[in-house]
């Protein structure tokens, strides 16, 4: 028995003495506010205080807690409470998975130093990783926590920077995929391939299944439905559990369900591996005669997307200036701090799955197909999601725990380890892009010719989307009369490449924006002015021939002008430091590419006067749980405070689509606006009031005031409508698009968002290290529904762009952890000045455009451009690690 004080209360617990304290707190005591992100001391999510000192609970033996005073995020302590309030005020919690660790690390700091400065805060929080916020809001909150909390804020109209509505749970230690454990749940563990390509055979499974504590074993043979899924059904090729051969390292080949409380031990599992020669690069996979990874895909090519407009070759031949270049990127890992986790159980004959996800309806459909169930028999209840960034669009453990629950009739639970999460889930596509861009003597872009090859890994996932999005976007937001752009996705035995914030567009932007710098120089133009000159304007045609509207790139670029002038003047060498300034733009179409992409939102008033918003747009930290209600409330004309929120849950919320492609604020926002307006219209119709009337809700009465007239509607007296409400509205919005023809001509998106970022940095000319000094980010959001959340997106996207540019390199089997795979820490993100530009889009709700992915796109190319400006180094392979920068500097000199 180990006894200690937990948050002021004495506790005694029976645990193995060497058990991790995190395990004791979470699994034995049930205090799951403390999160586990890596079990290796690399992420700090599990930070707790032991006798006032912060430690990683995952590295702390239970026995050492004996007699100690342990404090966790569940504590009701004054410093912690002030920190919580400050985190909410500043928007410092996005997904919330790192928040408990951040709060505890900050508590240690504030106890010693109640009013730290930002540098002290960064130092103190350097041991906790956050993948969402870019840290700025967290540091600001910690430095501001000493202030008395301000009075309650704004009502929440569109445009008001209210604190996120789901924030209180996040600063208390929210309930993520690993945090709900149905009583009696089996512990499910996957056996995964240690090889990129290997045949395998099982031995005596029955003997292993008979081991004490083993409840059941499942293999591909046990899948009752179609053992193939993909986010795009036409490409379904990925098994939930692979039959031999396994096609990538980390692929699941068997499941073992252990009885509750039994340490899951796969040692001695009867499997024999026969490694086979693997194709690890697209170059190898495209060699004529190379074995086909999927028999129906010649040359191992999944797909090629293209956009052809006018005659690019002729345009380039006639150009005054032409630049040519190639660029290569690597696998990039999403590195959300929450590894995949969830639980499944049966309710009657319905399979319920509660797990982290970005796409509950897709999970439902895929899981049902794999398990051979009608979709009505699968219910997806998303947990709080500890970061997604695209990877949690694809199913991961949903069909696995679903299979176990379905087959055993018992609840089942699965929590991926960090290395399992990294090895088995999708990555950003490694890209090899090369081509030419030309301009005329005045610097106007004349033509662009490019080919991109994307390593899509073993299965399709979002490869088709990347192949289609890249040619559409590869001009950047610049008028380009002649375009020949091709992008192909090639299978290898590498990790499955999928969606990662930008679907290939960040890789494309790296190529085009670094070339534009060189082209501007050839044309004798300032690099920013070159971009302003070429920026798309309303009425211009894009590369796909779409006539643009609400085109915000010009105002974004011009907003940078004063900053650019200042920064160039300040960019003088200082000792061995070489200062540089870089700029890059982005544009990004919101929603699916020329495919249906509807969202449905429901709002109802009950007979008792409850106003209920069925909000099915999954919030993975970006803020849909706040933005969608703000829009709905504005459209309806009732205050946010009277709403009750339902969702996300496939049994309770209509389908608001997936949280991807920067679509929720735009598409689900439009549906919410429509639903709010429809409910408002229905109410007004009841009393024949005009649209200018004001609504209020008092008990079961809705009061409609118009001029001097007041009408009272007694909700309790109304008949029940088809949706079970006294009065309700359900509206669907599907963005109007026009399909792309064989040359990629069409109108693939209804709304585009725009942005431009400027990076100021210094390069250590002798070590090749980069010190980021400031990033100024101008983003056209159409209308900032919630400026605080919009800034949070910008800061977080920039942090991921910094990582992609300077440090992130996923190598299967080598960087499957968060100490070899580096993501930015508190000390790696410079001050960020966000300039919110609002060019309203007629299609967007209140003019709003998407933002989530845009914000990452310009950062890495702007960094490379600034490095080149500082040193002359042209880095053409990412990440720009110090040794690569130094080598590029020498190459430039020689």
């Amino acid at each position: 028995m180990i006894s200690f004080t937990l948050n002021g209360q004495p506790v005694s617990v029976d645990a193995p003495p060497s058990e991790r304290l995190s395990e004791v707190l979470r699994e034995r005591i049930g205090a799951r506010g403390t999160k586990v992100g890596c079990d290796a001391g690399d992420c700090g999510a599990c930070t707790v205080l032991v006798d006032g000192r912060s430690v990683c609970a995952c590295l702390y033996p239970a026995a050492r807690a004996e007699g100690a005073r342990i404090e966790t995020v569940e504590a009701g302590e004054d410093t912690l409470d002030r920190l919580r309030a400050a985190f909410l005020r500043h928007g410092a919690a996005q997904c919330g998975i790192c928040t408990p660790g951040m709060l505890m690390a900050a508590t240690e700091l504030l106890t010693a130093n109640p009013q730290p400065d930002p540098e002290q805060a960064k130092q103190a929080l350097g041991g906790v990783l956050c993948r969402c916020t870019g840290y700025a809001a967290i540091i600001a909150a910690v430095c501001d926590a000493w202030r008395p909390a301000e009075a309650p804020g704004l009502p929440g109209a569109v445009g008001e920077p209210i604190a996120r509505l789901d924030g209180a749970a996040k600063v208390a230690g929210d309930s993520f995929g690993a945090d709900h454990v149905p009583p009696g749940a089996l512990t499910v563990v996957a056996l995964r391939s240690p090889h990129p390509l290997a045949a395998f055979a099982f031995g005596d499974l029955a003997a292993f299944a008979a081991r004490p504590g083993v409840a059941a074993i499942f293999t591909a043979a046990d899948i009752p439905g179609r053992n193939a899924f993909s986010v795009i059904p036409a490409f379904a090729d990925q098994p939930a559990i692979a039959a031999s051969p396994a096609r990538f390292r980390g692929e699941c080949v068997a499941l073992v369900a252990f009885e509750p409380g039994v340490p899951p031990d796969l040692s001695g599992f009867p499997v024999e591996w026969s490694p086979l020669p693997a194709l690890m690069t697209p170059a190898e996979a495209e060699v004529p005669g190379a074995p086909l990874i999927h028999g129906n895909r010649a040359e191992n090519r999944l797909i090629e997307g293209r956009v052809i407009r006018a005659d690019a070759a002729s345009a380039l031949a006639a150009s005054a200036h032409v630049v040519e270049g190639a660029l290569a990127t690597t696998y990039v890992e999403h590195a959300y701090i929450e590894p995949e986790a969830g639980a499944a159980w049966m309710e009657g004959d319905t399979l319920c799955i509660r797990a982290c996800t970005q796409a509950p309806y897709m999970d439902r459909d895929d899981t049902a197909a794999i398990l051979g169930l009608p979709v009505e028999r699968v219910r997806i209840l998303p947990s709080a999601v500890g970061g997604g960034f695209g990877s949690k669009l694809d199913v991961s453990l949903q069909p696995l725990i679903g299979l176990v629950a379905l087959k055993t009739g018992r609840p089942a639970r699965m929590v991926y380890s960090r290395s399992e999460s990294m090895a088995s889930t999708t990555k950003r596509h490694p890209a090899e892009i090369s081509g030419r861009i030309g301009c005329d003597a005045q610097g106007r872009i004349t033509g662009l010719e490019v080919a991109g090859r994307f390593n899509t890994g073993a299965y399709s996932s979002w490869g088709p989307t990347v192949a289609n999005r890249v040619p559409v976007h590869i001009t950047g937001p610049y008028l380009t009369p002649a375009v020949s752009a091709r992008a192909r996705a090639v299978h290898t035995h590498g990790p499955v490449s999928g969606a990662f914030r930008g679907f290939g567009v960040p890789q494309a932007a790296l190529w085009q924006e670094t070339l534009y710098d060189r082209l501007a120089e050839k044309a004798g133009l300032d690099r920013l002015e070159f971009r302003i000159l070429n920026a798309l304007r309303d009425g211009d045609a894009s590369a796909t021939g779409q006539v643009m509207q609400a085109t915000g790139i010009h105002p974004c670029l011009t907003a940078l002008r004063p900053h650019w002038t200042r920064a160039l003047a300040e960019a003088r060498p200082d000792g061995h430091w070489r200062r540089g300034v870089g700029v890059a733009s982005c544009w990004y179409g919101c929603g699916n590419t020329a495919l249906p992409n509807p969202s449905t939102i429901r709002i109802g008033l009950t007979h008792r006067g409850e106003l209920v918003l069925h909000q099915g747009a999954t919030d993975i930290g970006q803020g849909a749980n706040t933005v969608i209600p703000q829009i709905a409330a504005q459209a309806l004309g009732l205050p946010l405070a009277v709403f009750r929120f339902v969702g996300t849950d496939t049994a309770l919320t209509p389908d608001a689509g997936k949280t991807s492609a920067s679509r929720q604020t735009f598409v689900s926002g439009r549906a919410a606006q429509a639903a709010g307006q429809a409910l408002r219209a229905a109410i007004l119709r009841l009393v024949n009031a005009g649209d200018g009337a004001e609504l209020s809700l008092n008990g079961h009465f809705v009061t409609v005031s118009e001029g001097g007239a007041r009408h009272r509607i007694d909700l309790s007296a109304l008949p029940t409508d088809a949706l079970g409400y006294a009065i309700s509205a359900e509206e669907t919005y599907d963005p109007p698009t026009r399909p792309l023809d064989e040359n990629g001509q069409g109108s693939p998106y209804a709304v585009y968002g725009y942005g431009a970022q400027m990076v100021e940095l210094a390069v250590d000319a002798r070590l090749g290290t980069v010190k980021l000094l400031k990033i100024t980010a101008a983003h056209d959001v159409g209308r900032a529904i919630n400026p605080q959340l919009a800034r949070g997106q910008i800061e977080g996207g920039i942090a991921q762009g910094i990582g992609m540019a300077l440090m992130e390199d996923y190598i299967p089997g080598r960087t499957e952890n968060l100490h070899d795979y580096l993501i930015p820490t508190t000390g790696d993100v410079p001050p960020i000045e966000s300039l919110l530009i609002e060019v309203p889009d007629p299609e967007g709700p209140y003019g709003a455009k998407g933002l989530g992915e845009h914000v990452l796109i310009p950062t890495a190319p702007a960094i490379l451009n600034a490095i080149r400006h500082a040193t002359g180094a042209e880095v053409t392979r990412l990440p720009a690690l110090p040794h690569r920068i130094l080598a590029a500097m020498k190459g430039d000199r020689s």
Partner: protein
Amino acid sequence: MSAYARPTRLDDALALLAGGGWRVLAGGTDVYPGQPAALAGDVLDVTALPEMRGIGTGDGLRIGACTTWSEIAEAALPPALHGLQQAARQVGGRQIQNAGTIGGNLCNASPAADGVPALLTLDAVVELASARGTRRLPLANFLTGPRQTARAADEVLLALHLPASALTGRSAFLKLGARAHLVISIAMVAVRCVAIGGIVTEMAASVGACGPVATRLPRVEAALTGAPVAGLAGRIRPEDVAAHLSPIDDVRASAAYRAEAATELLCRAVTEVAR
């Protein structure tokens, strides 16, 4: 059921170790990664042994092996140990510094162990204890290779001894990585310099993460000893540095870069201390 012992008397700990089969656990920060929820096998937790805690003075300085990085960083120590304190503040994040110990860092014997370069410049001697008795050996002899030490299975690393002769002068530690915090070094250097009347009378320099173990740089030290502090870094010859290193190419950097960076870091550290 595996055993877990956390003795408070050194004799008890040594008696257990003499019986064999124990895994020694100090801060735990290098032991737990990659392990299941609880450690397998018998664990001897040495953090409750008073002999292994804290920093004491006498003939030189004695640092108990279970002294944490935070305790080292926060201690009032002479300038000769400022390099070690700089290293202490760069071992992982604050959480790791609060738990991780200097002795554990040495016994883990990573080529990139943050504590080693500074300790080498302090002529550190390790004290190993077993039921057979105690022995001391220079740190450089204790570290025999990557993840390899001269510690016998029945021994515990009790303390580090820094001779009084090495507690003089100024010191510095520089660590180079691809991000600000929580970083495994690409290269790191430590220097300690004693200067009298503008002339270097003693120079200790070492490099880590550029070979199987961190190493002192005798050629560099010889070249700088007796030289004026003014322009001292200019006397560091890259070939003298390279002679002691055997860096590798890995995900963090190329071998050639490591050697070049080590020289540059050394110049900067020397410039920092030589005045």
